[in-house]
């Protein structure tokens, strides 16, 4: 009978997880529908702040990990970023399905002004993968349950200065130089627009990570990043590195017998594993 109890309890826990997930989805939908008009209002406000996205993107420590340093020239051309959650118009869509739009200013003779929208969809069918890279059966099981991000390739006009590495222009992909150029181009921000999520190892890498970074962090927190970028960087802990060599705090107890006996140390830090 004890056994039955455990079986029943584990089943119940599984059911609870299902219900929690359902609630989280419901709530996320409510959240997005309430935030959506506010984000539109924010977009209009942002358009009145020159260089807003340039400041946000160039100060975000993670953003730079996804693009080549050379891309930053064109990242600076981003005039606006907009994200639409597709579930707000179609309740059948996954709440993680989004359309991300970029408005680029042009650079004379090199880069055309344009507005580009890339659509992202959560899929569960792991037979869609065209190249599986190092995916394991377990990855499949996980993705079948939780879903994985995919996207349609989307047309973007590359800068002229990238002609040498633009993957659609590299005709000779067998020579060492051709290969190298092709691969360099694949690492560019512009190749992300071609990302599908179905060709592991054969396209812009970690394109879903980049999409999530934009959707879950940079877009919702853009005002915070904008203001943070204005903070005098000198007196702030910019990142972990700075914390590790920051000033060492002394326990006041040491400095003398004047400490009262119920002092328990001023250390506010705890151990990290």
């Amino acid at each position, binding site marked *: 009978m004890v*056994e039955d109890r*455990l*079986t029943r309890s*584990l*089943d119940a*826990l*599984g059911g609870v*997880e*299902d219900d929690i997930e359902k609630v989280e989805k419901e709530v996320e939908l409510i959240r997005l529908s309430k935030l959506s008009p506010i984000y539109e209002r924010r977009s209009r406000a942002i358009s009145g702040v020159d260089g807003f996205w340039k400041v946000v993107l160039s100060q975000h420590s993670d953003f730079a990990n996804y693009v080549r340093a050379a891309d930053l020239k064109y990242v600076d051309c981003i005039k606006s970023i907009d994200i639409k959650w597709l579930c707000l118009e179609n309740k059948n869509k996954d709440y993680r399905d989004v359309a991300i739009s970029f408005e680029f200013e042009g650079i004379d003779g090199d880069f055309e002004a344009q507005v580009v929208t890339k659509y992202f969809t959560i899929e569960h069918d792991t037979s869609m993968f065209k190249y599986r890279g*190092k995916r*394991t*059966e*377990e*990855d499949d*099981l*996980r993705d079948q*349950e*939780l879903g994985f991000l995919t996207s349609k390739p989307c047309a973007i006009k590359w800068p002229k200065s990238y002609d040498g590495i633009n993957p659609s222009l590299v005709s000779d992909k067998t020579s060492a130089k051709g290969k190298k150029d092709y691969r360099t181009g694949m690492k560019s921000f512009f190749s992300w627009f071609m990302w599908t999520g179905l060709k592991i190892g054969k396209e812009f890498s970690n394109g879903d990570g980049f999409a999530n970074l934009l959707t879950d962090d940079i877009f919702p927190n853009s005002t915070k990043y904008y203001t943070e970028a204005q903070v005098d960087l000198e007196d702030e*802990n910019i990142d*972990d590195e700075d*914390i*590790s060599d920051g000033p*060492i705090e*002394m*326990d006041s*107890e*040491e400095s003398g017998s004047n400490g009262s006996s119920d002092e328990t*140390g001023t*250390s*506010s*830090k*705890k*151990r*990290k*594993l």
Partner: protein
Amino acid sequence: MPTLEERLRSVLPNSAEFELLHLLSPSKETHPLVLQKAPVRTDQHVVKAQHFFALASSRKIFYALEIYVYITLNLASCEKLVFVSKADTNGYCDHAVSIKDVTRALIEYVSSISPEIYLERVIQIPERRKVDINAITQRTTTRRALRILKKRHEKNDECLARSPDDPYCRIVSPSSQWTCKISLFTRSEPQYLFAESSQNTTKHILPGNKLLKWWLSVIDDILVNVFTRNTRARLQIPGEETLITRKHISSLKGADWRVGDIFDGRPNDLAIYTIPLFPDDPKGRFLEQLVDEGRARKVSLSQFWVELQIQQEFRLGDTVSVIGVSGNIRPSLCQSVANGEIIRTDSRKIFNMVKSYITGEEYNNEEGPSDAYTNVTDFLHLRLDSSMVRIKGTKVPNKTSLRHQDSQGKNDFARTSEFQPHTLNVQLVRKKLKK
């Protein structure tokens, strides 16, 4: 063969009592230490494990040593590499302990352990192991894990019982012949394993050149004590003239000390295919930087050493060095491990938990070493049903050191022992109070 306890007893002061923690992490298969030009052959295995030692006296932790061991198995060869990662003291010891002798004894001990010990139970790299969809891994979702647990329970398995195929694999060493390498990177730092211990005024920090001398003497002793005569020993001081580097090794006892490294590269070889990658290692970080800069295919080994010295993380003017030993342990000294001298954790998580009771503490006052001791002792008792090993020293001080101690008092310990061999440990970073 001396046990670990015997080795330490003979270097610790007579009749003084100490306690030793010796943790060994589970072994796991990993990538080859040196980036391979061609795809890795399937018959090659590289297995990595971590030793962590800590020494306590009067219920205070005062010394710690972190060592990684890499076993590289090819069809016909077996190499064991001992990477001395970090060693540190914090000054909270009331006895005059020769940290140099302790460090030497511990590295000799680790060096002489047979490779088999690390191969009994190995976590395989994911791409190599057979996926058992009934095993719970870190990729398993909560709901599927609940179903697996239920199934196991219904089949009357214990929840924690391993599935019939033990997911750990046993890799059998191909032969009893094995080579042994030691590698370390010396650089002076205020603290490595004991955060804020530099604030303890009894802790004395050696400058880079003295630290190098200290380590050379440790490694030289090990070379003479446990290695065969034809063993190579090498010293490389990035950015330093060969002549000056040579001076450092001219009076050592080992038979084959030379300027250079043990990585078997020619000066024109690409550094990326020659220099091994160790955890948290400046050499490795520089290699990564070369990859990021797209120069990995251009920088030769000789150029690597020159440029390494210019790296930002090398403080100008302070000596840093790379010391290497490559050869064979004298067969009569190769040994297994004795019962009770190792606490082998089942998971790396538990290993890290125990270790972090020491490395996560703050050592700006005596509460740190004492809390670390208490927490480790309690954790071992409550969670691992084990304890630190008690060791009573037997070393009778000779006259010179007695006199030395008389004149220096307590500080003798600090003066002769404080040193910092390697790189800043990222795990020292504590969580700041979040508001």
